[in-house]
């Protein structure tokens, strides 16, 4: 009966907030396997559903509650080079990032529920939105009016401008 003290209960080991999500970056250079491996050891988080007006300072203040922040990279509109509602937060240790996944994901910043997810690591170019009009893809297609994210989705905006139904 050696190592009694090392026995744990799997029910108590549950850490569901830290699990990797279904999302996989389509632009990731490498196999799915490699991406998943990177996600499991990463100290970098993707943060989504930010307001376009949320500043680096606000993000620093909030995420510092989980540990020292190594770097924040603001997500930018590819054309306008202005914040477009997401960012990357990199911690010095994975343990700190895990705390953020457990306690900041799903809470509010700037009165919006923000979402955090594991990221394989920031690479130059990933700070830009991948939507056709420069922002995030989700802002192309959404149909709601969101005052913190430029109002209506881009396609709807174009429709309104042209008074024509979009053909796609």
């Amino acid at each position: 009966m050696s190592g009694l003290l090392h026995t744990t209960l799997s029910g108590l080991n549950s850490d569901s907030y830290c699990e990797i999500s279904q999302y996989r970056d389509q632009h990731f250079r490498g196999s799915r396997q490699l991406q998943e491996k990177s996600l499991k050891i990463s100290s970098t988080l993707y943060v989504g559903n930010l307001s376009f007006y949320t500043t680096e300072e606000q993000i620093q203040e909030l995420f510092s509650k989980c540990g020292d922040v190594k770097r924040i990279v603001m997500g930018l509109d590819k054309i306008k080079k202005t914040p477009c509602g997401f960012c990357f937060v990199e911690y010095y240790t994975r343990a700190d990032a895990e705390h953020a996944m457990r306690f900041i994901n799903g809470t509010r910043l700037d009165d919006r529920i923000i979402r955090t997810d594991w990221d394989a690591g920031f690479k130059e170019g990933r700070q830009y939105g991948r939507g056709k009009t420069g922002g995030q893809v989700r802002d192309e297609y959404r149909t709601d009016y969101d005052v913190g994210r430029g109002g209506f989705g881009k396609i709807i905006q174009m429709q309104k401008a042209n008074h024509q139904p979009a053909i796609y």
Partner: protein
Amino acid sequence: RLESLICRVGEKSTSSLESNLEGLAGVLEADLPNYKSKILRILCTVARLLPEKLTIYTTLVGLLNARNYNFGGEFVEAMIRQLKECLKVNMYNEAEYLVRFLSDLVNCHVIAAPSMVAMFENFVSVTQEEDIPQVRCDWYVFAFLSSLPWVGKELYEKKDAEIDRLLSHTESYLKRRQKIHVPMLQVWTADKPHPQEEYLDCLWAQIQKLKKDCWQERHILRPYLAFDGILCEALQHNLPPFTPPPHTEDSVYPMPRVIFRMFDYTDNPEGPVMPGSHSVERFVIEENLHSIIKSHWKERKTCAAQLLSYPGNNKIPLNYHIVEVIFAELFQLPSPPHIEVMYTALLIELCKLQPGSLPQVLAQATEMLYMRNVSHFSYCLTQDLEKPKSKFVREVLEKCMRLSYHQRIIDIVPPSFSVLSPANPVCIYKYGDESDRSLPGYTVALSLTIAIKNKASNDEIFNILKDVPNPNKDDDDDEGFTFNPLKIEVFVQTLLHLAAKSFSHSFSALAKFHEVFKVLAESDEGKFHVLRVVYEVWKNHPQMIAVLVDKMIRTQIVDCAAVANWIFSSELAHDFTRFYVWEILHSTIRKMNKHVLKIHKELEETKARLARQHKRRESDEDDDDDDQSSDREDGPLEEQIEHLQERVESAQSEQKNLFLVIFQRFIMLLTEHLVRCETGGIDVFTPWYKSCIERLQQIFLQHHQIIQQYMVTLENLLFTAELDHHILAVFQQFCALQA
């Protein structure tokens, strides 16, 4: 599968707990021939890790013992082994749960009462040991007393004389033990309306009351009562004589604590009555709620659900208990058991699950904390900005601003409070205006600005700076790069101003011109001056100061000691009691600590690599026994180890120096104040003084593990007998925490 069955018993189910337990006992009994050791292991583990379900599992063991006497005996043996292991590796919290479990097994007829009493007698006799730390006796007394809510009645019925004797020994120990540490751990300074009792004193009062009530205890869920008929038939086991393992140099006992209370029966007039502070029910509820948090803290939704489904909901004001327990953990000294942000996330989940009742309790708590947290002065908040209440509000508003933005705060703060609003966090550039052109360095600042905007290199920058005269310069000092405060000022002011747009811009600037910084800040005075200028530029934006200082330490532009000296300097005296200053200091200390750990880890890893290399060589068949070739192989690693060893020593020395600097500056500052008060005949206890003394305590508490290494130096060098007793008391209280 077995683990899952065992862990899930007691959770919400369509059948009663009793029938679930009976069913599970049947299943396990059937599995004993094949899975006995696995079952033993799981049961020992739930005893250690799930104290909130103690009585459920003791009942289960009771049922198994009734069906299989040998199994019962083996389980008890395994538990004793586990207990000994825990004590050996300083796992005292777990050990306490095991002792409690064993004592409840008396209620389940698994363990004979007299043998349990004998174990407690051995525990209490630890108080007679000589030359041992008080915290050792504390734990053994605590382990005895804290089991009594569960087993007091049964033990007293069987062995009243022995229990009385134990209680009397305990009482005399409690009377003679030192309580120097208590003031350091108390959250409130006043004792009204809720006394901040030391944990053992509180438990003693609770047990005395329990005894007075004839050991009647009605809160604990006792499933074994339903099985009394079966359990009575079972044969009991005797605990083997248990000798507490002796004290060793490596023994680290739990630190004492103070019980945090903020509610009593007057706070919930319309609901169930809150058990009194000296009732044993209060103790049991608090213990169980703390255990639930400990079990489920990583899963905030589960944790909230488990807390809210704690049994007894309609007989106790559960929401109040939960809120009180959460704040107790948040305020625990030296530090909360879990990261602070967990508690806020947990409170949010609790409010989501109980939107009609919990937010009100939280609001009540917040108001209470605010009203009690600050002084008793009844000044109008805006009249005297030095009053603690005003300072508190200002700090809160500043924190709110950091999470939002300045205009938002201005918009929501009513006009009568506007003097408490934070400053607009803009940078102050001294060379920004035409009117500044008479300032020395103005023209260089202009050239620098143009150069930087045109993407000048470090060399070009050095060139421009060469022209800055040195106000300190000696006549025969011909070296261009000695400490030149004006050069530093012009460069840092200009650069920070150009990069003021965001943190990222400023960090880029620090990185790009790192070389220049390194040269300008080479000397200690240089480092100090850089910090001074950073403050001058960004004094309206404390958050920016903090992140810049962090970056400068990490990129070795300044070192930790420089930051410490700067924080205690006269330039910062005005901001000395502001929260951001302490954020910076503690962050600096933490960086130093992490740095030491990191290099130490590297050293250990390299040593392990060398050991593995040796092992590999030993097991190689074609070893040519050539000493020289093995040396050659080991060479690089050994060199690395030597190098790392040096780095570890150097880092540890820097770390010790940092703490010494901090303590020394505290002593100087406090002594100055005390002397001034004495000669002037004024009261020592100004708000500033109270704040300063508490900040000193905070250093001790937040970094107690590291500081323990320096006790001898601190006692001989800094906290000597000649020191004013006010300051010395803080040190003595700290020493008492592990005495």
